[in-house]
């Protein structure tokens, strides 16, 4: 090549680059191609508290929406539990249409074996057995099934119809959609929220190391491990995910070396070449961990990347170190798919760095187990909110039309621990303290009001803005043990049994004599012949038994104040319709405000007393009768439907884009009056 030719080539290349760049920047603006609908989902935002605060001028932005568009209580599902309610939001159907009836379901073929309702992990049952390993070969001609997690929520999500219509959809932190449903047409971006497990496969397992833990202790939500210091240095083991390639699966581990300052209140923690120095009471930034899955010697080992934060709670006299549940690493999620499309999560992480990916981000279990103080929990929950606000900014910056949904868990998980709106005795705090912490919920609502204000200011009337919650809130003062009551009334036998499934609790139930049992937070099942493995109730006996149980449950009074405990007993065959009704509990117990199913009821255990005080830091709840804890709906457009409900939200969104409402959805647009939306037939 001659020099002149070389220079000409360079000049031509530069010119081509400049022209191509100009062409891209002059691309027709797509911003206004699709109407904007922005939905802000505040889990558990309560209409009564909102109303009080708006009247007092403390929620100016929501109040502005109330005056310009509308504000109404939003009818929730029965039971008013988040996975159930958000699944109804997603599908526009009652629980009979999506199959989520509680946090916990049971498998009647195994009598009442409980499992998480919204997702199921199916382990690989075949593979190439070599040495101590079994490797699933997923390619032809072997086509073994790898271990996979399946979304159990049924029904068609509303975004599938938008996706089909070519409308961009951006969904952040949506509950009851893990693993995220697929986008057939490529117009949907979704980050899954509540339901996403941590790397250990649960819904948040913290690891707590301390010198005053005598021996390893597992507890709901975490594990405590002992620490022994020799010359101010201790070795600890952080448990990671199981190596499911092993024939006998074993947990992976990362070794922590903890050096305590000989005199000061600080320590340094070393692992995998990283060093974290913390003062007492400090949290670390997110730390990356790499868990090695050992493979047969002729294959390279696999690495699973996780992230965690460390909290040096105390240095002296006892050293206490809390490690958050190990979250899926958003910058390197590997096989763990928590977004649709799968690369969406790394796109977010490239811009924002590391953040909580597990569905339950606020570690309420650490507070309930008295590992966190109220202040510790508040600081951790506050950090979660800050992260989510950063994610919200990302969402707004990348939104250019179509539907944007953003979910906040803080209004739910802070309220569960800090809400207390009466002068009655609080389960764990003196009344003054209870009031002080309830104020944090009030402050949180003010922050959420700012979020609404920023959204309205950003879009004005260019967007339809919907601010909603799935349910409200109430105190949880007294707990009702449904199974104890059933046992004491002869529906569960023998009279001395202690549990439906857990032999460690004591005598187990005798299914051959048991007519009904409670599982989950609101579910009551009959032990039906032909459905339950050991069923004894024949179909012709069902009606009478339901009537008898309903009558007796409604008559129960709290001996403390002679008030009724149960407001309503719902029949699933009356309130549900759709393909999944047969798997629903037969009855749903709707408690009065202040009451809830006891902790032991949820997993089928029995306590000594039928009714007792709630003694947990989880001092507020919403698993009562649906009409006692409606959610909220605000809009900058007039709310014309008289009694809007969660099932109306999907039709409302579809209607905003002129997409016809499918028959599986039972609601109607809340922005149209009931008269208009009535069908001619």
């Amino acid at each position, binding site marked *: *090549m*001659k*020099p002149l030719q*070389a220079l000409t*080539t*360079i000049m031509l290349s530069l010119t081509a680059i400049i022209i191509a760049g100009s062409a891209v920047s002059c691309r027709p603006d797509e911003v206004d191609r699709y109407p904007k609908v922005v939905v802000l989902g505040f889990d558990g935002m309560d209409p009564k508290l909102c109303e009080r605060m708006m009247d007092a001028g403390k929620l100016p932005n929501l109040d502005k929406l109330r005056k310009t568009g509308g504000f109404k209580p939003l009818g929730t599902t029965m039971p008013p539990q988040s996975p159930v309610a958000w699944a109804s939001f997603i599908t526009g159907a009652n629980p009979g249409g999506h199959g989520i009836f509680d946090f916990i379901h049971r498998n009647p073929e195994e009598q009442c074996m409980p499992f998480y309702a919204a997702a199921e992990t199916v382990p690989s049952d075949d593979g190439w*057995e*070599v*040495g101590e390993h079994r490797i699933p070969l997923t390619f032809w001609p072997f086509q073994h099934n790898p271990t996979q997690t399946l979304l159990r929520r049924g029904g068609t999500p509303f975004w599938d119809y938008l996706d089909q219509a070519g409308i961009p959809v951006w969904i952040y932190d949506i509950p009851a959609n893990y693993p995220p449903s697929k986008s057939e047409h490529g117009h949907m971006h979704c980050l899954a929220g509540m339901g996403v497990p941590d790397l250990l496969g649960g819904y948040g397992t913290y690891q707590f190391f301390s010198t005053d833990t005598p021996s390893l202790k597992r507890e709901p939500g975490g594990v405590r491990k002992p620490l022994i210091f020799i*010359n*101010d*240095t201790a070795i600890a083991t952080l448990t990671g995910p199981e190596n499911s390639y092993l024939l006998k699966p074993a947990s992976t581990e990362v070794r922590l070396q903890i*050096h*305590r*300052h*000989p005199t*000061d209140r*600080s*320590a*340094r923690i070393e692992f995998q070449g990283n*060093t974290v*120095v*913390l*003062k007492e009471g400090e949290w670390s930034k997110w730390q990356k961990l790499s868990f090695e899955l050992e493979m*047969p*010697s*002729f*294959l390279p080992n696999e690495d699973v990347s996780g992230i965690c934060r460390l909290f040096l709670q105390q240095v002296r006299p006892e050293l206490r170190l809390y490690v958050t549940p190990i979250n899926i690493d958003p910058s390197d999620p590997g096989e763990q798919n928590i977004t649709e499309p799968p690369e969406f999560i790394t796109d977010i992480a490239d811009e924002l760095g590391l953040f909580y990916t597990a569905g339950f981000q606020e570690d309420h279990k650490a507070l309930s187990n008295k590992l966190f103080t109220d202040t510790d929990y508040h600081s951790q929950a506050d950090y979660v909110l800050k992260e989510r606000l950063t994610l919200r900014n990302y969402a707004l910056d990348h939104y250019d039309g179509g539907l944007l949904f953003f979910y906040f868990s803080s209004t739910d998980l802070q309220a569960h621990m800090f809400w207390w709106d009466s002068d009655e005795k609080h389960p764990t705090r003196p009344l003054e303290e209870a009031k002080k912490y309830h104020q944090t919920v009030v402050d949180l609502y003010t922050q959420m009001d700012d979020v609404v204000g920023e959204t309205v200011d950003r879009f004005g009337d260019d967007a339809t803005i919907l601010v909603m919650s799935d349910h409200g809130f109430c105190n949880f003062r007294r707990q009702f043990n449904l199974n104890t009551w059933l046992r004491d009334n002869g529906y569960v036998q023998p009279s001395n049994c202690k549990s439906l499934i857990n032999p460690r609790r004591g005598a187990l139930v005798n299914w051959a004599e048991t007519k009904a049992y409670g599982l989950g937070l609101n579910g009551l099942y009959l032990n039906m012949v032909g459905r339950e493995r050991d069923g004894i109730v024949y179909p012709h006996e069902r009606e009478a038994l339901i009537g008898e149980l309903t009558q007796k449950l409604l008559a129960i009074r709290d001996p403390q104040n002679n008030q009724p405990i149960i407001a309503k007993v719902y029949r699933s065959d009356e309130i549900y319709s759709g393909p999944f009704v047969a798997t629903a509990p037969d009855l749903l117990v709707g408690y009065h405000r202040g009451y809830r199913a006891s902790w032991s009821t949820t997993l089928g255990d029995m306590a000594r007393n039928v009714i007792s005080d709630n003694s947990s830091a989880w001092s507020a709840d919403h698993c009562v009768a649906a009409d006692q804890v409606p959610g909220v709906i605000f809009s900058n457009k007039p709310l014309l439907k008289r009694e809007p409900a969660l099932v109306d939200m999907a039709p409302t969104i579809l209607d905003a884009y002129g997409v016809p409402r499918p028959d599986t959805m039972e609601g109607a647009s809340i922005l149209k009056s009931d008269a208009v939306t009535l069908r001619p037939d």
Partner: protein
Amino acid sequence: MDAVNWLLLNAGDAVLATWSAVKVGAAWAWSIVDTLLDPLLSVVLACLNPLCTKLGDLVYAILSPFPIWIGLTLLSVAAGLIALLAFRYTSNQTAIGRAKDDIKANLLALKLFKDELGVTFRCQLRLLWAIARLQRYMLFPFFVMLPPMLLLLAQMGIRHQWRPLQPGEQTNIELRLTDEAPTTDTTPTEPITLQPNPGLAEIVGVPGADRTVWRITAGSPGRHILQFHLGAESIEKELVVGTEFQRVSAIRTRHNWGAQLLHPAEPCLPADATVASIQILYPHVDSWIHGANWWLLSFFVISMATALIFKPLFNVRF
């Protein structure tokens, strides 16, 4: 299937064992080379590094009006051109030309006489020989260009690999002691302290048997000299705080030519110091063109492209 499994598992074990042996052997060989080269190269680098750093400062000061990626591009183009000219005058161009002609001729012969087995084999042998000759002619200019290129890359590395701490940003400073330093089981016998400094807004230190780690929060912008005291011994280390593009020295070590080559901005620690190294964990520069690790790729791509483009102009063959 059991036989296949047995074979695979044993083959895998054998490969792993071989790989371990290779690593051990390589480490041993390197330690010998290191021991042999260190007395000479360490002294040479101790003399050259201050000069190179001053020259680097001057060059980057000239480039400072431009965006960083343009500066990197200009520097890479200049390096490519200089390397091309150095190659032109240090290599045997005639011999290289002959070797290249032989390669072309034998490739052509392979294509033309692909049905002649004997010719094909002979051509392949000649081709291999020509390539070997070409490689041999490349060796001398390569060794001539290697030292200045390494010095240049080191100067670029201390500017493009890490960035200064921003005010309020946290990082760790790690001070490692030599094996000879007197320690108890957990801490040095003499307390190690990091003196307060305007560049440090907060210091939290935790000692250990072999090293002490401080978590620091960067204070006011500027080039600060940190003072570490270990008993009567006093050691200094530069800390850079600021938002501008400037060089940083991540590690200060005792005499070792490898460390001196990679971290040329500060003089070595005294030979009799009980401190082996002081490292500031500066954040990496975040850029796909001139940021950490990418700058090296950008440099090689641009300098190679420059050499290829200007090869005809300077009539260079390689």
